[in-house]
C-alpha cells in the first residue's frame, strides 16, 4: 500500500529470497488469484475438506443445542473451577485472531512488503477466530439467552451493566475488534471484488460481486481517499489489537486470585496472542500455498519471517513464565508461592510441562536456519505451538482456580465429552468458514500484489 522506499539495501535484498517470484506481471497475478475463485467446477478436494469441517460444525450445533436445553452442568465446570474450557477456548481463539490484525495493520505501518501476500487470509482468519471466540462468553453464561443483558440498554429492571468489571469491558473490546476487523477486511476487499465482478463468467457471479463491489471503478480520486482510509484504519487497528488482548488479560489480572493478579499479564498475553496467531497463519499458509500452487506469492521469505516472529514471541512468552515464577517467590506471598509450586508439581503438572515443551523449548529449534527453511518442520512446529498456547490458557485458568486461598475449597476439574465437543466443533466452524472464504473470495490481496509487482519492477530497473 505505501509505495515508499524498500527498507533493505539492494545488496541485502539480493541475498534474501524474493518477496514475489520474478517474472510476474499485473495480469498474471490477477489471473492466478482470481482463477482460484472463479474456477469451475468446484474442486473435489475442496468439497471433501468442507464436508469434514461441516460435520464438525454439526457436532458444534448439537453440543450447543444440548447445552441450551440441559444447562452448564453438562460441562465439567463446578465449584471451585467455575471457569473451564469455555474461557480457555475464548482466550485461545481471540489470541489466534491477533496475528491477522498485526500483519494487516502493523506491518503496513512498518512498510513491510512481505505482508502483501498473506494479509488477506490472515485478516479472514482473524474474523473467523473472533467469531468462534465470541461464542464462548455467551455459551458459558448460565442462561445464554439473556446475553443481551451485558449491553447497556434501557430496561424495565432499571439496571445497567457494571462498567467497572473486565467482563463488561470484554463485551466492548471484542465487539469493537470484530467490527473493526470486518470493516478493515471488507475495505481491503473492495477493489478485488471489482476484479471478480469484471472477470466472472456467470451472471450470478457478476451480480453478487457487483453488488458487493459497490461500483468500484478504480478512479484515482477514489484510490486517494481509499488509501487514506486504509492507513487510518491500520493506525486505529494497531492500538486496538494491543488493547483487546489486554482487556482479555484483565479478566484474570483484575481478579485477586494468586497466579492471576499479576501486572505482567497484559504484555504477556499480547505477546502470547501474536505467538499463537502467527502459528495459526503458518498452519494455514503452508497447506494453502501447496494446494493452490502459490509458492510464487508466499515465498520462503514469508515463511522465514513468520518463523522469526514466532521465535521472538516465544522468548517473550518464556520471559513471562519466568517472571511469574520469580515474582511468586520474590513476593514472599505464601499463596503466590504455593500457586507457582502447584502448577509445576501439582495434579496438573503434566499440562504445565507439556506447555513448557511446546511453547518454550520446541520453538528454540527456529534458531537454526535449516529448520526455519524446512516447510514440513515449520508446519509441525506451528501445530505444536497452537496446542501449547491452548495448554497455557488451560494451565492459567484451571490451576489458579482449583487451589486458591482456602484449602477446604480445593477441588479438581475434569472436562466432559461436551467440553471437547464444543472445542472441536469450534475448530470445525473455523475451518468451514475458511473453506467458504477460499472458495468465494480472493485469498490474496490482488490489487496489493499488483502494487508489489509495480514496486519490485521499478527496483529492478
Amino acid at each position, binding site marked *: 500500500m505505501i509505495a515508499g522506499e524498500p527498507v533493505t539495501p539492494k545488496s541485502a535484498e539480493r541475498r534474501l529470497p524474493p518477496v514475489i517470484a520474478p517474472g510476474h506481471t499485473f495480469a498474471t497475478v490477477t*489471473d492466478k488469484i482470481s482463477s482460484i475463485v472463479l474456477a469451475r467446477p468446484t474442486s473435489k478436494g475442496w468439497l471433501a475438506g468442507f464436508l469434514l469441517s461441516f460435520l464438525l460444525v454439526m457436532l458444534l450445533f448439537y453440543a450447543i443445542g444440548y447445552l441450551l436445553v440441559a444447562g452448564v452442568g453438562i460441562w465439567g465446570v463446578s465449584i471451585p473451577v467455575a471457569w473451564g474450557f469455555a474461557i480457555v477456548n475464548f482466550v485461545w481463539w481471540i489470541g489466534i485472531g491477533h496475528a491477522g490484525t498485526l500483519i494487516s495493520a502493523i506491518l503496513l505501518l512498518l512498510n513491510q512488503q512481505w505482508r502483501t501476500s498473506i494479509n488477506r487470509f490472515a485478516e479472514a482468519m482473524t474474523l473467523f477466530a473472533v467469531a468462534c471466540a465470541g461464542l464462548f462468553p455467551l455459551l458459558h453464561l448460565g442462561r445464554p439467552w439473556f446475553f443481551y443483558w451485558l449491553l447497556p440498554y434501557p430496561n424495565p429492571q432499571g439496571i445497567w451493566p457494571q462498567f*467497572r468489571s473486565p467482563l463488561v469491558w470484554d463485551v466492548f473490546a471484542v465487539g469493537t475488534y470484530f467490527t473493526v476487523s470486518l470493516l478493515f477486511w471488507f475495505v481491503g476487499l473492495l477493489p478485488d471484488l471489482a476484479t471478480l465482478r*469484471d472477470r466472472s463468467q456467470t451472471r450470478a457471479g457478476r451480480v453478487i460481486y457487483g453488488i458487493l463491489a*459497490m461500483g468500484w471503478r478504480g*478512479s484515482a480520486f477514489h484510490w486517494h481517499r481509499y488509501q487514506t482510509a486504509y492507513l487510518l484504519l491500520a493506525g486505529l487497528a494497531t492500538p486496538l489489537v494491543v488493547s483487546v488482548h489486554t482487556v482479555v488479560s484483565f479478566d484474570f489480572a483484575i481478579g485477586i486470585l494468586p497466579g492471576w493478579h499479576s501486572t505482567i499479564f497484559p504484555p504477556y498475553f499480547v505477546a502470547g496472542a501474536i505467538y499463537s496467531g502467527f502459528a495459526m497463519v503458518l498452519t494455514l499458509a503452508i497447506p494453502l500455498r501447496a494446494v493452490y500452487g502459490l509458492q510464487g506469492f508466499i515465498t520462503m521469505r514469508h515463511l522465514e519471517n513468520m518463523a522469526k516472529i514466532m521465535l521472538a514471541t516465544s522468548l517473550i512468552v518464556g520471559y513471562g513464565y519466568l517472571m511469574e515464577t520469580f515474582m511468586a517467590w520474590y513476593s514472599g506471598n505464601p499463596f503466590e508461592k504455593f500457586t507457582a509450586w502447584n502448577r509445576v508439581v501439582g495434579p496438573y503438572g503434566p499440562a504445565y510441562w507439556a506447555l513448557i515443551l511446546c511453547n518454550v523449548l520446541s520453538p528454540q529449534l527456529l534458531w537454526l536456519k535449516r529448520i526455519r527453511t524446512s516447510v514440513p518442520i515449520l508446519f509441525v512446529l506451528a501445530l505444536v505451538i497452537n496446542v501449547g498456547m491452548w495448554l497455557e490458557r488451560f494451565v492459567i485458568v484451571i490451576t489458579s482456580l482449583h487451589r486458591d486461598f482456602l484449602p477446604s475449597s480445593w477441588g479438581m476439574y475434569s472436562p466432559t465429552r461436551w467440553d471437547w465437543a464444543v472445542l472441536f466443533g469450534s475448530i470445525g466452524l473455523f475451518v468451514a468458514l475458511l473453506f467458504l472464504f477460499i472458495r468465494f473470495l480472493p485469498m490474496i490481496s490482488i490489487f496489493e500484489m499488483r502494487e508489489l509487482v509495480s514496486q519490485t519492477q521499478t527496483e529492478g530497473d
Partner: protein
Amino acid sequence: MAKQRNKPNVFGLLAEFEKPQDLLAGVRGVLQEGYRRVDAYTPFPVDGLAEALGFRHTRVPLVTLLGGLVGGVSGYSLQYWTSVVDYPINVGGRPLHSWPAFIPVTFELSILGAALAAVLGMLALNGLPMPYHPVFHVPRFALASRDRFFLCIESADARFDEKQTRDLLESLGSRRVSNVPY
C-alpha cells in the same frame, strides 16, 4: 471549426495505456492543454496520480477524528451517567465516578467510532455505492481492474471536441481511444 455545443452524444473519451508512467504522462499532457474534467482509472493506486490530477486535500482524516471523538465522548458519558447518576452502586469500595475503570470502554468506543467514520466517510465522499457509471459501457474497461490504465475526459469539459481531444490522447501515447456512451 465551430464546436457543437448542444448535448454531446457521448459521455466522454476513454484512453487506454499499458503502463502507469504512460498514464501519468498522459494526465500531465491533458491538463497542460487546459482540460479539467479528467479522471483516471487504475487497477491499483498509482503514486502521484491524484496529485497530478489536482486532488489536494481529502476530508477523510477529519471525518475519522470526529467519529473517534463522538465515540469516546459517548462512551464516557454513557458510563458516567449510568454509574454515577442513574444506577449508582458501591463496587469494591470504588468511588462512583471511578474514571480509571471507565477508560477501557471509552478507548474501545473511540476506536470503533473512528473506524466506522473512516470507512463510511470514505465511501460517502467517494460517492459509493454507485453501481452505474458510463465508463462501464466500454467493454475494454474491464481491464481497468486487471492490467490497463485509463484516462477519461468528459464531454462536459469546455475544451472537449471529439476529434481534437481524440488526437491529443493518441499523441500522448494511448493506442486505443474509445467513445464512452451514456
